[in-house]
């Protein structure tokens, strides 16, 4: 599930939650406009400090990925994915650089890397279109 926590990971728990929700939205596990469990509910469910969960929700809200409607709860934002596009592009670029470094150490050539990336991108969008 998107709220699974890997205790062995060195990633802080709140970051894992943020990543988990982002991925779940991107994969369509969480739909736009869908209601998320409240901080209290989630804290009790996964036995995590409620402030940690609140922190994750706050970060997601700041990024416009989820939104809290007073008295009604927390929802996946409707244009969540579009929000903050400039920032997002920059972040993706940074991640891409990491992949490049990794590829360099693995001794991949430019063509090989492009092939792998192309395959991954194609597969991703194919899955997404089937899902819809």
């Amino acid at each position, binding site marked *: 599930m998107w709220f699974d*926590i890997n205790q062995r990971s*060195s990633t*802080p728990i709140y970051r894992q939650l943020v990543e988990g929700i982002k991925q779940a939205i991107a994969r369509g596990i969480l739909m736009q406009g869908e209601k998320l469990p409240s*901080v*209290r509910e989630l804290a009790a469910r996964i*036995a*995590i*400090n409620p*402030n*940690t969960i609140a922190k994750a929700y706050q970060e997601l809200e700041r990024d416009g990925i989820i939104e809290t409607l007073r008295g009604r709860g927390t929802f996946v934002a409707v244009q969540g994915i579009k929000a903050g596009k400039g920032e997002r592009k920059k972040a993706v670029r940074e991640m891409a650089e990491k992949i490049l470094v990794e590829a360099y150490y693995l001794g991949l050539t430019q063509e090989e890397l492009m092939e792998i990336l192309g395959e991954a991108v194609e597969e991703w969008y194919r899955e997404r279109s089937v899902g819809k």
Partner: protein
Amino acid sequence: MTVWALETRGLTKVFNGEKAVDDCSLQVAQGSVFGLIGPNGAGKTTLIKMLMGVHLPTAGNGQMLGKEIPDTTGEVRQEIGYVADTQQMYPHFKVEEILQFCSMVYRNWDRQRCQALLKGFELPQGKLVRSLSKGMKTQLGLIIALSVRPRLLILDEPAGGLDPVLRHHFMQLIMQETAREGTTVFFSTHNLYDLERAAEQVAVIMKGKILFSKPLDQLKSSSRKIQAVFPKGMPEEARNIPGVLRIEEQGRIYSFITGSDFEGVWERVQGFNPVYLEVMDLDLEDVFINVMAKEGYTHEGLFLE
């Protein structure tokens, strides 16, 4: 201004000339979950027993929920749920008799809640305390602690002696309590995973002394690993960057383990124009080993579990 639900000022306990707890000053913010971690025999239980009035402190004092401790009236304990490390209840009493006694002692005893918890844990009321397993006794302890409608929960090794499933239920209940009621939780553990999930503030106790008390986030974010590869080997100046706890070498890769001021170290390392630079978070265990090593303690015996 932060309200402290629990505060100790120089609490000290001397047993036979040895300081079991040495000048312990802690502050636990209201509504927070505070984890006290340390190896067995570090003084966790002694400290908690002093808070609960079981041991009288040799020196020092404190306050809980605004009431001074040590407290001769016992009034301060009315709103505190306490789960001891070993449950020493009357062995010849039935579970329901223990509960009846508690309901007479605690002013805000919540009978319905108690019944619901009994059902949830499937604890037989007619059983003698003597015939309960260690885990069942701990459950009974938690049932009592939650039925008093506490504003502060004090838990000494709460998940000790429980199997993984119960352990999870136990932590769930406690997190539920703090999320719903804003109950402050002060718990001791030697288990880092419980600590990381539950606590937002953490204090380390070793040989009776509090080494430090910090937000867990701060602890984790200040202690990270920066891996770098330099074009012409490592520059000499990079060896003395302030805030670096340790430098590990592995082939051409140098790992800087930071203890504080991560950002500062990151900029300094970047300044040496490395060809490869990466940050890695450390898991809590590494963080602790590094921080403790800096405090002059090795991790011997600390993380055996």
